[in-house]
């Protein structure tokens, strides 16, 4: 259906063999599409601002009064905003493909680039880059807020809470892991929307996957089931990467937890890619 339109334009370097855009062209096209929609900018700004704001509020609400033991994981507390920011990232990622379906633009896209998996890969790559950038800024803001606020609330080095610093291995793991977490959430959302082809349903499904596991785990009183639920939930497992203390009591180790989320994202992308490849758009 689509072999007549995309005649090679002179001067466009990115065209691959056969006249269609190659990988670079696909990347360039997706980058242009995302860049030129004002929504993308707003959502990226919202990711950073809301994440930092929620983290700041959480830090401001926490005090360690003298003389009491405070079993607080300070880096994790400083990164509380990720739980909020991930929802914005999910919206951004879902809209990256969902708005094409709602406007019918997807047909134009697939006409111009009939190699559909390449389209999805290009979207994933551009999205990952954007989210990694925004996530890095957001995480840096969260840690900075924690570093500025928490020592004044009783979390001092003298009481066993060293100043937040990326030179500290576990803190670096929590920070870098949180950035990766956001990127994986974006990929999971992109894959889910490629499967569902509707941005509203995709957002609902993704947020359901993220938030329902901890809720159900809370009412299950059988400790084994609770542990299993927390091990397979994309959010409960993925956020294990933020823990720096009490690693033994975690349902899953930090990197394994992030691996669970990566498996969810890979599964969603694979399903989305296959359906995109074999289904009518």
């Amino acid at each position, binding site marked *: 259906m689509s072999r007549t339109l995309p005649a090679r334009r002179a001067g466009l370097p990115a065209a691959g063999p056969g006249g269609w855009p190659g990988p670079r062209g696909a990347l360039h096209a997706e980058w242009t599409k995302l860049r030129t929609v004002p929504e993308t900018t707003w959502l990226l700004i919202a990711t950073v601002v809301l994440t930092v704001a929620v983290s700041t509020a*959480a830090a401001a609400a926490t005090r360690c009064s003298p003389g009491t033991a405070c079993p607080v994981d300070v880096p*994790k507390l400083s990164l509380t905003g990720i739980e909020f920011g991930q929802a914005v990232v999910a*919206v951004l990622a879902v809209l990256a493909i969902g708005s094409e379906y*709602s406007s019918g633009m997807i047909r134009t896209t697939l006409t111009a680039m009939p190699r559909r998996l390449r389209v999805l890969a290009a979207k994933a790559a551009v999205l990952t880059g954007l989210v990694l950038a925004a996530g890095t800024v957001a995480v840096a803001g969260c840690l900075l807020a924690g570093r500025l606020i928490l020592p004044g609330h009783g979390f001092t080095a003298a009481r066993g809470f060293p100043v937040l610093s990326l030179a500290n291995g576990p803190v670096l793991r929590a920070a870098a892991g949180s950035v990766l977490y956001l990127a994986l959430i974006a990929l999971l959302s992109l894959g889910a929307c490629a499967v569902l082809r509707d941005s509203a349903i995709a957002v609902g499904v993704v947020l359901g996957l993220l938030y329902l596991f901890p809720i159900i785990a809370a009412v299950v009183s059988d400790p084994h089931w609770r542990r299993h639920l927390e091990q397979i939930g994309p959010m409960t497992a993925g956020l294990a990467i933020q823990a720096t203390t009490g690693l033994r009591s975690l349902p899953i180790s930090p990197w394994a937890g992030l691996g669970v989320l990566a498996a969810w994202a890979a599964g969603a992308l694979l399903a989305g890619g296959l359906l995109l490849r074999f289904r009518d758009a």
Partner: protein
Amino acid sequence: MSTGVITRARPGGPARRAGFGSVLRAEWTKFRTVRGWVVGMVVAAVLIDLIGLLAVQSSIACGNGRTGAACLQSVPTGPGGEAVTDSFYFVHRPLASHGSITARITTLTGRYVSGGAAGPGLPGGGLQPGIQPWSKAGIIIKAGTKPGSAYAAMMATGGHGVRFQYNYAQDLPGLPGRVSAVSPRWVRLTRSGDVITGYDSADGRHWTKLGSARLAGLPATAQAGLFATSPMYMKVTSGFGGSSGQEGPSLATAVFDHVGVSGGQPGGRWTGQDIGANGPAYSGAQIGFRQAGGRFTVTGSGDIAPVVPGTGSGPSGTIEDHLAGAFAGLIAVVVIAALFMTAEYRRGLIRTTLAASPRRGRVLAAKAIVLGLVGFAAGLAASVIAVTVGVRLSRDQGQYVLPVTWLTEARVIVGTAALLAVAAVLAVAIGTVLRRSAVAVAAVVVAIVLPYVLGVAQVLPAGAGEWLLRVTPAAGFAIQQSIPHYAQVTAQYTPPAYFPLSPWAGFGVLCGYTAGALALALYLLRRRDA
């Protein structure tokens, strides 16, 4: 854009604009004829039931390692139908239908095990001195010695002064302060038929009435006497990433003198009895009573109080545990409700809609009503099944579910349906404001579900999590709380079993947000071009 031109009088018909009834019918037709939305509502209902049943099948709810019928029988039920703990040491004698009992409490002391590693027949060496805030000792008139029977009692407590308590749930305050030899407390109960009145006094001459209780069905011969009991020692470290409780059994010992009973049978003897020996069994040397002249020394362990979830031991299953799926149903309903509005913007249908019915407020109202009613119906059907069938399944499996009155059960079921309905209306309003379905869905889900997740998972410090469940739309889930917070019971009053606001107040918070969003939606719908 200018509207209202098209809807002038149709030739042949009466000159009329669409009335609200036909706007409503138009919106209902729109909903009904989109198969995806109807299927989505069914999916919402099925999710509620499936998740609710799955979550419960994996629970162990009965304490003390009991299962099956033994579990169900081990928890007595009070006169109000609620599950109760009724275990104490009772020194009693019969009391006729008119009479009174008076006593002076001179000391109240306690011992407890802090480690929680207490076995049956605990040796005295593992105990350390200390009284629990709700250790109780005093006088009691009780229908009989069967656990769960009606009673009224005047008591001194470890940390809450003198109290008048009756029928497990009721608690009225009296003289404050601790009991000691220099500051004893006098207590008196008078019985007149089935009305019991409690008095306290600091000196035995000036009496203050605390209150009266009508104990329905109190037999002509009741049991009256002295009692002592002490609940589990409990230290709650409400913290981050899960609050933990440390607990262990405790004992309370009280010394009474000036004990007087009028209206008893002549020549009645005091009988000591360990009522409802349900908690950790103490050896006979540790609980019991001694009588020397006019002095009684009574030692007991246990509690006379309602059973609540969050005490660490004992049964904790509640009917709302079966409604964990409501969150999944809520997300599905929110998606459909947001789409119901935003789909009109996506296809430009909104212009046709507003042309046909230029009074835009009516369109918004009709959409809100249709979605609210559909959400309510789906939620009601699902939660009736989830609660009635789910609770029966749980009980068949020998899991203990705390009983509640039918009124509470109805409130939880209808409240869950109303929760879905209001969430649907909120999503319609936010969809109108934002006009983008994905953003609207995310906004509503984050506003309602995320604060609950943060409050339940206790990522945040306890105070902040509680604050979130007060001021965000997530407060609405308080409508599902079936067991109230009892001030006279020490427990971990944390979500998901407890909410900081009362059921209707919490629901009111959600309704307030929805009303605000509707007002904003109405304003923008009128002011903005469609």
